[in-house]
């Protein structure tokens, strides 16, 4: 399949004012991101993730190597029409309101005034900022700014969505919403490049990942393949069928050796938190912060195969 992103020997060396080499941020990176996949770029702080993304977006000029995004040069204006980008920090014009911000970014694309207004309202609903639509974004908290940053990245219904630390500064509900959105967009065949150092986020949604360290590619492959422990097996039984834990453990150890562990499965904290909030909302508790988010907007849900159906239980996220 034709790659959405292809880099060969991509290198970026930052220079000082006198053009002397200062930092080698990315070194000889070969990367292939297939169209329609959710690709995770992992690495600790300073590993070159954000620099790689900026090179892919044409914001930085490579010191060596080549970059192709959607089969074109990254700084080609035609390429940018198909890209949505959520930066690591929410870079917003602080004197514009949330609505003005979305309208401004919409104007930069070939979107008619009516459609722009519709999308603006839908996105404000989606990110839960409809009530704060006329407030200057300079007054927003970090989480709210992040939400408006996400909304601007989706205004053009992009074919390639680049998310740099998308869940940074968001509450667990916002994190879950981002993951739902990624899944929804992936179902529509969109390519998503997700850059994060939060491993749980990446593990939940990515098809393939690459791990960078010190500007170099250290590992790359399918998440399931990379995380599978071939040497161990897990069995899940209903409590009634298993009987008392101690007895079952004793039986299993006698048969398979001392490494056997028996216990109750634990749900993820995120699922537990979401469950608590959901119950509070059902009790109509007043909410002084971000309003209730609407679902993914209609124009981001439409697929050739039919409408998008949100995922079920919180434990799957």
């Amino acid at each position: 399949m034709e790659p959405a992103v292809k880099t060969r020997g991509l290198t970026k060396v930052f220079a000082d004012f006198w053009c002397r080499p200062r930092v080698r941020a990315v070194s000889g990176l070969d990367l292939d991101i297939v169209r329609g996949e959710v690709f995770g770029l992992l690495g600790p702080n300073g590993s070159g993730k954000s620099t790689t993304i900026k090179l892919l977006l044409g914001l930085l000029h490579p010191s060596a190597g080549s970059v192709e995004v959607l089969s074109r040069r990254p700084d080609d204006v035609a390429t940018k029409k198909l890209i949505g980008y959520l930066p690591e920090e929410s870079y917003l014009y602080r004197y514009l309101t949330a609505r003005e911000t979305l309208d401004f970014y919409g104007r930069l694309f070939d979107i008619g005034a009516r459609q722009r207004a519709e999308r603006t309202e839908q996105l404000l609903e989606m990110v839960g900022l409809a009530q704060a639509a006329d407030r200057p974004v300079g007054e927003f908290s970090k989480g709210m700014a992040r939400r408006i940053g996400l909304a601007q990245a989706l205004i053009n219904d992009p074919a390639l969505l680049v998310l740099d630390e998308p869940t940074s500064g968001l509450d667990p509900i916002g994190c879950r919403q981002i993951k739902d959105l990624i899944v929804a967009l992936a179902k529509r065949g969109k390519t998503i490049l997700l850059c994060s150092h939060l491993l749980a986020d990446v593990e939940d949604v990515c098809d393939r990942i690459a791990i960078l360290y010190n500007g170099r590619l250290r590992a790359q492959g399918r998440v399931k393949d990379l995380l599978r422990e071939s040497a161990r097996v897990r069995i899940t039984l209903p409590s009634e069928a298993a009987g008392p834990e101690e007895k079952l453990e004793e039986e299993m150890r006698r048969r398979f050796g001392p490494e056997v562990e028996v216990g109750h499965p634990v749900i993820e904290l995120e699922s537990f938190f979401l469950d608590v909030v959901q119950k509070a909302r059902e009790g109509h508790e007043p909410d002084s912060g971000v309003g209730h988010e609407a679902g993914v907007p209609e124009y981001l849900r439409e697929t050739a195969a039919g409408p998008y159906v949100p995922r079920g239980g919180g434990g799957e996220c």
Partner: protein
Amino acid sequence: MLRFRQFTALAALAAGESLRQPIFLLLSLTCVAWMAALPVVLMHKFGEDGKLVREGALALHFVFGILVTGHAASWSLAREMRGGTAAAVLTKPVGRDMFYLAKYAGIVSVAVAFSVCAALATLLSERVSERFVADPVLGGYVTDWNTARMVFSGIIVSLVVAGVLNYRWRFPFQSSGFGLLAGMLLLTFIVRGQFDIHGRLSPMLWAYDWRIVPASLLITLALAVFAAIALALSTRFPAAPTVAACCGVLLVGLVSDYVFGTAASRSFAAATLHRVLPNWQNFWMADALADGGVIPGWYLLEAATYAGVYSAAVLALGLTFFRRSDVG
């Protein structure tokens, strides 16, 4: 069509962001209030009031215009390049050339908006200034206090209304304050244009010193050149060094005729510097208005050509830097 829409959106954003900066309203208000106060503080100069007020007001227009434009140009691009908003915009289908030129257009439109205010204030201020009138009934030294009162009231009303708009409907105080200030100055200009300096109704009299208009226009051209220089510098330097470099360019450009012009015939280096550095004296024609002098149309055209060519050259240089620079 899309490119035009993108360009106008970016230019409007650059202008809007500058207009909403508190310092813009502060500088504009100070400039207008100072101009309005000139006839008061320069009272009784034996017929020289008009000249002193005119030259003082034009000087304020130039100095405050440089501050407004320099701040808008240097902070706008430098801050956006280092703060990340430029990166966010450049990931949209916007070329660097368009981004850069739209920024310039936005900053120049701010300079024009400021200049309109300053020119109106200069015209009104000159009208207020004391002058000798040879009239058998109302003759002697006359000051148009009605116009002065209306100008000062306009400043206060614009601030109060902007405050109310902000409190009641959350209108941005800075930009609505500036818009109201401009509106009040225009209203005063139109209303007082229907009266003579004694306060008698004389419809369509327009008793203003219209020679001020071309002088203000020249200063606006200087601001456009200055904006191009500040913008070009901000592609390479952060905001503070850009402002410092702009100050240097301003000072050297002001003394260009004296330092390099006089030595141009003897020294190739002086001649080159005289041609390459911006010559702000080309845009300062307040002296020409003394003793009833006027600025001829051909001079305006020549100055506009000089400003256009110089700005284009500086913008091209800045664009070259901006294309090669890393953003974000």
